[in-house]
C-alpha cells in the first residue's frame, strides 16, 4: 500500500457563486403572518368599522397579551426540541394561587402578585425540566403527565371554590384594565417579555445554545454545552412565563377557578407553530410566536365581529395551523433546493 499523490490544485472545486439571501427566505415566514394579519384586519374593518375602534383594538391586544406570554415560553422550549403541554395547567395553578393570596391580603401590591405567579410557574417548570433531564423522558410525555397532575393539583386546592371579581382588590383588577401612556399594562408586560426573550435568544450565548441543542442534541453535548442545565432552564422559563400569564389572566378576567386556562396548551402550541417555530427544534423566533398569538386572537375577534358561526372558529384555527406548517415546508424545500443547486457542480 503506497500513498497516492496528486498535485493539488490551489483550491478545491467547491465554490461560492453568489451571496445568497437565506435570511430573506427565513423572514418570509414572519412577513407572511403580517400580511395575513393586515388582510384579515382590513377585510373585517370594511365589514364593520368598529373593529378598528380604540376599544376593539384594546380588547384584541389584551387578549393577545396572555397568549403571547405563553407562546414566548413555548417557543423557548420548542427551540430546544422539547414541548411544554402543561402550560395551561400551570397558568391555572398560578392564577388560583395569586387569586387566593390576593383574596386573603387585599393590600398586596401587584408586583408581589407577579412574583408569586412567577415563583409558582417556575416551580412547575423546574419539575418538568428535572423529569425531562434526569428521567431521560421525552418532554411530550412528561408534560402530558404534568398537564394532568398540575390541573389535578389546582382542582384539589380550589375544591370548587371560585374567586370572584368582587373578592379581588380593586387595584389588582385595575391593573388588568388600565393603561400607562395609553398602553395597557398587560400588553406592556407581554411586549417586555417578548423583547427580552427575543434579544437573549438571538444575541446571547445562552440563547444560541438553546438553538444548538434543538438542532442536534448529541452534537450539543459534544460541543460542551450544558444540555441538562439548559433544558431545565428552558422549562423554567416556560413555567415562569405561564406563571406570569396566570397573573395576567387573573387580573384580566377577575373570575378564577381551578379550570382557568384549561385547554390553552393547544392554542399556545398553535401560536408558536403558526409563528414558524419548528416542532423539531433548532429554528423559529419568539417574534414569530408572538405574531402567531396575535393572529389567532384577531381571527377569534373577527369571527365574532363578522358574525360567522363561532363553531367555525376552531375549524379555522386548525386549517390555519395546517396552512402555516405547509407554507413553512414550501419555504424549506425552496431553501434546500437553492442550497443544493449552489453546491452542485453541474
Amino acid at each position, binding site marked *: 500500500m503506497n500513498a497516492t499523490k496528486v498535485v493539488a490544485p490551489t483550491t478545491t472545486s467547491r465554490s461560492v457563486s453568489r451571496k445568497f439571501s437565506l435570511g430573506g427566505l427565513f423572514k418570509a415566514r414572519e412577513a407572511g403572518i403580517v400580511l395575513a394579519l393586515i388582510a384579515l384586519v382590513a377585510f373585517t374593518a370594511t365589514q364593520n368599522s368598529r373593529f378598528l375602534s380604540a376599544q376593539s383594538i384594546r380588547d384584541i391586544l389584551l387578549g393577545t397579551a396572555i397568549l403571547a406570554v405563553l407562546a414566548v415560553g413555548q417557543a423557548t422550549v420548542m427551540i430546544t426540541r422539547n414541548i411544554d403541554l402543561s402550560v395551561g395547567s400551570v397558568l391555572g395553578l398560578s392564577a388560583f394561587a395569586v387569586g387566593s393570596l390576593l383574596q386573603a391580603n387585599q393590600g398586596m401590591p401587584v408586583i408581589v402578585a407577579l412574583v408569586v405567579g412567577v415563583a409558582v410557574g417556575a416551580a412547575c417548570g423546574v419539575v418538568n425540566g428535572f423529569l425531562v433531564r434526569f428521567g431521560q*423522558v421525552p418532554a411530550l410525555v412528561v408534560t402530558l403527565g404534568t398537564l394532568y397532575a*398540575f390541573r389535578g393539583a389546582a382542582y384539589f386546592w380550589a375544591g370548587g371554590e371560585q374567586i370572584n371579581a368582587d373578592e379581588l382588590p380593586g387595584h389588582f383588577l385595575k391593573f388588568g384594565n388600565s393603561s400607562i401612556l395609553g398602553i395597557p399594562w398587560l400588553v406592556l408586560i407581554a411586549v417586555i417579555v417578548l423583547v427580552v426573550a427575543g434579544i437573549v435568544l438571538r444575541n446571547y450565548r445562552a440563547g444560541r445554545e438553546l438553538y444548538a441543542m434543538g438542532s442536534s442534541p448529541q452534537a450539543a453535548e459534544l460541543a460542551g454545552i450544558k444540555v441538562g442545565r439548559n433544558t431545565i432552564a428552558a422549562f423554567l422559563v416556560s413555567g415562569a412565563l405561564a406563571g406570569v400569564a396566570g397573573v395576567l389572566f387573573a387580573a384580566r378576567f377577575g373570575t378564577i377557578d381551578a379550570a382557568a386556562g384549561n385547554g390553552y396548551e*393547544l392554542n399556545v*402550541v398553535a401560536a408558536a407553530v403558526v409563528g414558524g417555530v419548528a416542532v423539531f427544534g433548532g429554528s423559529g423566533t419568539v417574534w414569530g410566536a408572538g405574531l402567531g398569538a396575535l393572529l389567532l386572537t384577531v381571527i377569534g375577534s373577527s369571527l365574532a365581529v363578522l358574525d360567522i358561526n363561532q363553531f367555525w372558529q376552531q*375549524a379555522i384555527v386548525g386549517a390555519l395551523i395546517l396552512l402555516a406548517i405547509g407554507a413553512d415546508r414550501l419555504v424549506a424545500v425552496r431553501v434546500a433546493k437553492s442550497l443544493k443547486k449552489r453546491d452542485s457542480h453541474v
Partner: protein
Amino acid sequence: MSDKRPAWLSRLASWDAAVIVITVLVLLIASGVVENFGSSRNFTFLLLDLLPIALIALPMTFVIVTGEIDLSVASTLGLTSAVMGDLWNRGLPIETIIPLCLVLGAVLGALNGFFVTVLKLPSLAVTIGTLALYRGLAFVVLGDGAVADFPRAYTSWVTGTIGDGPIPNMLIPLVVLAVVFGLVLHATPVGRSVFAAGASEQAARFAGIRVARLKFWLYVVSGLVAGLAGVLWTLRYSSARADNGLGMELAVVAAVLLGGVSIFGGKGTLPGVLAGVVLLATLQNALRLQDVSNEALNIVTGVLLIISVLLPNIVIRFRAALRRRATT
C-alpha cells in the same frame, strides 16, 4: 461474556411485560380490596369504559411505533359522531350511515396521511391542526345539539352483553381487531416494516420498504378505527354530539406510552398497550368506587404516565450501576 441471562428473562424485565404483570396485580388487589369491584356487572362497566380507548389505541400503537403520532383521533371520533347524527336527522337509514361514517373516518385519516407523508410535515403539528379542524367541523355540522333517537336494536346491542353474561357485545369487535392488529404487528412483514420505519426511516427506505405509503395507510386505518369508535360511542350513549370523546387523544396516548411503546418509535408491543389501557381503566374504576375524587384521578393518570416512561430508564441505570460494581 458474562451475560448468560436467557432471552425470555430479559424480555420479562422489559417494561411492557412489567405493565402486564402490574395490571394483573392491580386487578387482583382491586378485586380483593375494593368493595363491589369484583362483581360481574362492574366488570361489564369496566370493559365498556375502556373499549373506545382500547380500540383507538390499536392503530395508535402502529402510528407511534413508526415514530409518528395521531392526536386527531378523538376529533375524528367527534366528527364521525356529529355526521352520524346529522345523517340520521336527514332520514338516511342507519345501515347506510354506519358504512358512510367508517369511510369518513378513513378519509379524515387519509388527510392526515397526506400531510404527513406527501407534504412531509411533522405529524405532531399536523394532527394538532386536524385535531382543531375536525372538532371544529363537528361543531359546524351539529352545532352544540345532540341527536338521540337511534334505533333500539343497535343501541341495545352496543350496550348489551353476550347472552346476558358479564361480557359486553362490543368486546367482540375489540378482541377480533386486537388479534388482527397484534398478529400484523408482531408476525408479518408489514409489522417488521413498521418497526424498521420507526427505528430508522432512511434505512427502511434503503431496504425497499415504502415508508411513506406505509405511514399513509396507517393514518387511514387510524382514522377508520376512530370512525368506528365514533359510531360505537354514539350508539352506546345513544347520543350523537360534536363534543363526543373530547380530550380522549390524551388518554389514548397515555395508555399507549404506559404500555411501553417508545414515543421515538421503533419499540413497543401490542399486549403491552392493551395492558396499559386496562391498567388505566382499572385504576380509574377502582379509585372511583373508593370515592377518590376526580382530581385525584387526574393526578394518578399524570403521575402514572410519567412513571411509565421514567421507570424503565431508572431500571436501566440501576442495572448498569450494578454491573459496574460487579466488574470493579
